[in-house]
C-alpha cells in the first residue's frame, strides 16, 4: 500500500473503526507500522477526533430541562384531550341541530286539518265507501283506478298492500259469491315490474286450482297496469259490462 492510499483509507477510517473492510484495515495497519510519516498523520487525526468528540459532548444540560419537557408534553396531551372533547361536543351539537331541524321541518310542513275537510271526507266515505277506499289506497302512490275494463265495485271484498313477487303493491280483491269466484287485482307501475312483457291476449297456463291471469291497461296512464289473477269461468264475472270480454 502506498502513502496516498493509506491517507485516503485513514480519512474514511471512522471513529467506530469498523468502517473499513478487515483486509483494508490490516493493510493500513501494516503500512502505518512501516511509514512514520503516515503514522504521525493518522496519530494526529485520531487525537484530533478524540479532542473534538470530547468538546462536542461538553454541553451543559440545564438541570430543570427534564421537568419542563415533561410539563410541555403533558400540557400538549391535555390540549389534545380538550380538542377531542370540543370536537365531539361540536359533533353532538351538530347532530342535535340537524335532528331538531328535521323535526321542526316536519312539524312546520305537516298538513293542516280543517273541520270542513274532515267532514267532507267522511261524507264521501259514507256516500261511496268502496270508491273512497280504493282512492285512498291508490292515491298514496299517485294512481287512480281507471282500468280499461270497469270492475263491479259491488263485489269489492277488500283492498290493501300485498306482497307480489317480492314487492308490495296495491291489491283489490273482488268476490263473485254467486259463482264462487274470486279475483285479485294487482295494480303495478313500470317502476315496480316490467309488466308489459306479459301476454295481453287472454292466454294463460295450466293451474292446479284453476287460476287464470288477465292483464289490463290503464285508460289514462301508460305506465300503470292491472294484473288480475282470478278463478271461475272468466274475467267477465267481475266486470260491470260483462259483454265485452
Amino acid at each position, binding site marked *: 500500500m502506498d502513502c496516498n492510499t493509506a*491517507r485516503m483509507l*485513514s*480519512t*474514511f477510517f*471512522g*471513529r*467506530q473503526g*469498523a*468502517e473499513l473492510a478487515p483486509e483494508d484495515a490490516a493493510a493500513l495497519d501494516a503500512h502505518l507500522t512501516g511509514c512514520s*510519516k503516515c503514522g*504521525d*498523520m493518522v*496519530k*494526529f*487525526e485520531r*487525537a*484530533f*477526533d*478524540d*479532542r*473534538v*468528540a*470530547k*468538546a*462536542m*459532548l*461538553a*454541553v451543559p*444540560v*440545564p438541570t430543570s*430541562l*427534564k421537568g*419542563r*419537557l*415533561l410539563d*410541555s*408534553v*403533558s400540557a*400538549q*396531551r391535555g390540549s*389534545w384531550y380538550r380538542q377531542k372533547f370540543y370536537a365531539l361536543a361540536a359533533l353532538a351539537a351538530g347532530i342535535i341541530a340537524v335532528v331538531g331541524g328535521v323535526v321542526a321541518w316536519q312539524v312546520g310542513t305537516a298538513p293542516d286539518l280543517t273541520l270542513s275537510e274532515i267532514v267532507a271526507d267522511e261524507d264521501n266515505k259514507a256516500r261511496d265507501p268502496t270508491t273512497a277506499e280504493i282512492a285512498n289506497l291508490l292515491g298514496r302512490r299517485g294512481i287512480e283506478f281507471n282500468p280499461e275494463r270497469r270492475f263491479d265495485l259491488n263485489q269489492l271484498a277488500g283492498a290493501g298492500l300485498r306482497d307480489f313477487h317480492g314487492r308490495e303493491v296495491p291489491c283489490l280483491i273482488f268476490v263473485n259469491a254467486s259463482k264462487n269466484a274470486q279475483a285479485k287485482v294487482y295494480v303495478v307501475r313500470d317502476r315496480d315490474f316490467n309488466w308489459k312483457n306479459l301476454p295481453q291476449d287472454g292466454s294463460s297456463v295450466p293451474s292446479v286450482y284453476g287460476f287464470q291471469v288477465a292483464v289490463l291497461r290503464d285508460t289514462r296512464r301508460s305506465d300503470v297496469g292491472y294484473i288480475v289473477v282470478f278463478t271461475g269461468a272468466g274475467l267477465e264475472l267481475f266486470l260491470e259490462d260483462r259483454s265485452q270480454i
Partner: protein
Amino acid sequence: MGGTASGQGIASLVERHYESLYRYAYRLSGGAADAEDLTQEAFCKAQAQLSQLRDQDRAKPWLFAILRNAYLHRARSDRAHKQVSLDAVGDLPDDPPPDVPEIGSDQLQRALNELPEGFRTPVILFYFEDMSYRDIAEQMELPIGTVMSRLARAKAHLRDRLVPSVGEVTRGL
C-alpha cells in the same frame, strides 16, 4: 395519540433521551435557548406521532430525525448563521503538529456554526453519537458516498479552525 400508555411512552422517551437530544439541538442551533425550544418541539411532535415508532430500539435515531426536521424547518426562515465556503479547506496535513490542543466547547461551536447544515449535521452525528457512515446516511437520507465526502470536508474545516498550525499550513497552500 391517546391514553395513558401514550403519556407513559413519551415520558419514558424524555427520561432516556432528553440529554442527548438537547446536546444535539445545541450543536445544531448553536444556542441554549434554541436548543431547548427544539428539544421541546421534537418531543411534542414525537408524542403526536408515537404510533409510528414500532421498534423501541430505534427510538433515539427516530427522535434525532424529528429534531433535525424541526431544526431545518426553522432554519429555512432563519438564515442567521454566517456560513463559509468549504472550497478552500485542505486535506490532511503532510506535517501534522505533534500535539493536538484542547478544544473548547464554545470554540467548537463557533467552527460548527460556520458550516452549512448539510455539513454540520454529519460531523455532529459522527463525533457526538459515534454514528457510522451508514447510520448518518440513513439519518440524512443521503448516499453513503455523499456523507463520507461531506464529512471529510467538514472535518478539514474543523481542523483548520481548531488547530491553528494546521490552518496556517493549509491556508498557505
